[in-house]
């Protein structure tokens, strides 16, 4: 090299050393902070998201231990309490839908089943369908999205067209039609289990293109990054690039979209049960409770309010948490 560029070296070398020295001062104290840890620290500071997260956790616990909790309360979701029903109108006796020390959220009209117990059992259905269908969607969406984005060509065209088609498909009508022609028993399952199983599969199946599109787009942009070229220039094959270079960077968007997908799926389940194609009575579900409450909206408004509030709180909690996760992971804010 000739003089012109060597002169700056003399001046800049010490500054480079200084830079290194400065950095070294805190080096021993500070372990590198990964993007994941930074996101977690950010999430911890987001009070609203934390509140949402706590409610979600609570719901999961309640759903898991629904039989235990109702047992402690001495209630059963399917037990009739006709003695608590006004024989003339069919509505619960007492104020606010029959709220009492035994029945904390009152009882149902006509047969007098304990509403709290049914809400707790309904939470199981909602969360089960919400989580599992989101899982189906995430698995399908991730695998197909990566295939489309990473390999491109005709595979990408084919998968993209399928996604377009599914997104345009009237899924609600399809499910209603499907359920009406479905046998009562299949794969060794019967009654409500069949319905739950079918709902998980169908909601998951119609949900994957949402994740698939995001994953495909991310993969397309990530695979052009120079660090992928760098890995290739070191002799890395496709498998290494996919699992070591791309997937770690896809986790964040996948997590974000999964947390946002769960509440949507819970709403879809409620809608299906409301329309009578969800779980079968007597199995409790929030949508179904709402649907039967319609007949009593004047005489027993509490019957409608309770499952409505349950759905509202659940969806809100998931959304708050999901938004928090998204903000925490947002790559634009990371630095």
């Amino acid at each position, binding site marked *: 090299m000739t003089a012109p*560029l060597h002169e700056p070296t003399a001046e800049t070398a010490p500054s480079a050393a200084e830079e290194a020295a400065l950095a070294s001062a805190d*080096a021993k104290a500070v372990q590198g902070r990964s993007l994941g840890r930074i996101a977690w620290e950010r999430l911890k500071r987001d009070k609203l998201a934390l509140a949402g997260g706590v409610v979600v956790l609570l719901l999961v616990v309640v759903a898991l231990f629904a039989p235990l909790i109702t047992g402690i309360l001495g209630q059963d979701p399917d037990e009739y309490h006709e003695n608590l029903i006004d024989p003339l109108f069919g509505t619960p006796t007492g104020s606010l839908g029959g709220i009492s020390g035994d029945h904390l959220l009152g009882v149902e009209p006509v047969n007098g089943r304990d509403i709290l117990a049914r809400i707790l059992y309904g939470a199981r259905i909602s969360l089960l369908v919400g989580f599992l269908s989101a899982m189906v969607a995430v698995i399908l969406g991730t695998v197909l999205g990566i295939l489309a984005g990473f390999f491109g060509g005709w595979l990408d065209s084919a998968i993209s067209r399928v996604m377009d088609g599914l997104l345009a498909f009237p899924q609600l009508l399809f499910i209603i039609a499907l359920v009406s022609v479905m046998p009562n028993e299949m794969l060794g399952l019967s009654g409500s289990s069949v319905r739950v199983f079918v709902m998980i599969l169908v909601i998951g199946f119609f949900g994957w293109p949402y994740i698939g599109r995001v994953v495909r787009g991310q993969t397309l942009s990530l695979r052009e990054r120079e660090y992928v070229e*760098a890995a*290739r220039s*070191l*002799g890395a094959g496709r498998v290494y690039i996919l699992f070591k270079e791309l997937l770690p960077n896809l986790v964040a968007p996948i997590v974000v979209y999964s947390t946002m997908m769960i509440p949507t799926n819970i709403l879809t389940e409620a809608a299906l049960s409301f329309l009578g194609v969800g779980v079968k009575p007597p199995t409790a579900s929030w949508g179904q409770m709402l649907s039967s409450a319609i007949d009593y909206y004047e005489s027993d408004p509490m019957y409608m309010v309770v499952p409505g509030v349950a759905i509202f709180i659940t969806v809100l909690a998931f959304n708050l948490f999901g938004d928090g996760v998204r903000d925490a992971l947002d790559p634009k804010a990371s630095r």
Partner: protein
Amino acid sequence: MSEKSEDAAVTNPAQSEGAVLSKDAAPGETLLKVTGLQKHFPIRKGLLQRQVGAVRAVDGIDFEVRSGETLGVVGESGCGKSTMGRLITRLLEPTAGTVEFEGKDITHLGVGGMRPLRRDVQMIFQDPYSSLNPRHTIGTIISAPFRLQGVEPEGGVKREVQRLLSVVGLNPEHYNRYPHEFSGGQRQRIGIARALALKPKLVVADEPVSALDVSIQAQVVNLMDDLQQELGLTYVIIAHDLSVVRHVSDRIAVMYLGKIVELADRESLYKAPMHPYTKALMSAVPIPDPRRRSAKSERILLKGDVPSPISPPSGCRFHTRCWKATQICTTVEPQLVELKPGQRVACHHPENFEDQAPQDTVLLTAAKEAAELVADEVLAESATTSAAVAAEVAEVAASPTGPAAEETPDAAASDEPETDRDSK
């Protein structure tokens, strides 16, 4: 890196040590040879993805890289420099032509076939923000070469990573940190450490400093230079203008629209550039701005934009912007020929050298327009090697306001173009 080959052999101990480190290929021997290299990116359209054309990013180039030297590659944005770099590191598969590394044809080797060669050919990337995976620690990034190549460095991977970090001037304690915890210049040093981990012979650096702050550019360039001396590296350094390349290169290749238009020793190129495009690049960064016409300076402004590489101009690709273009330039493609020892040029009417097509003495209309953006001094110089320019200059001098009507070949024909030299 200039003069290095001369210094090296005689005086510089670091260099002779470097020669030992690079195992074979004595300085000056051909390390990489490229012949007729082409890369056409197909353009597909429609449902059936039918090919409707191609981007001719690299369109037939020949050059060689000698062991221990630094070859600079310059050209405007989009002229195919990065594509060329990715072809010689075989990140892309050439459409045609051959790439030979140490005499071995590597043109069509697959991922597996290339893997052992990856140790010898490495790349430094342009964007320090996108070249390091944000999810990996620096330790993971710099040790990736060892994992991918199955190499167990002496003293263990961690020790070697720390050694590499200190070699590039970073704190060895930082191997557990993440890329976002470093500045652009530091990241580029990390990229350099990764590229050097396997002690490569050839390093291709694609605009290694253009994303960095000007104050840091020199540091990084100097680091690369020092490492070249210590390790006996051979560099291909890509840049979009001559400012970075001019100090560090032994030889310089100038690219225009997928072609090499001039390839010369640094000294020759600076003393006497022969291709008009080289001359324009050297005069300044080309800015097409007709308003500067009144304030003509030594600067050469190029008319218009770079034409599309999808349908490059016929003949000489530079003829749409060249102030010396004549009829032959639109029809016959000038070949890259060695006009002077160590200086290869592809031009019919080179600067600073005898006209290669003296019979062609009529300037194209486009060339006259292009000439309006060129300083008088430069035009005068150009006239000495082009009868057409000379005639034009003479005519404009005679009737400054008159419309520069197209002359007939007979009128301007001159049997002795050399005699027109003084008709400024």
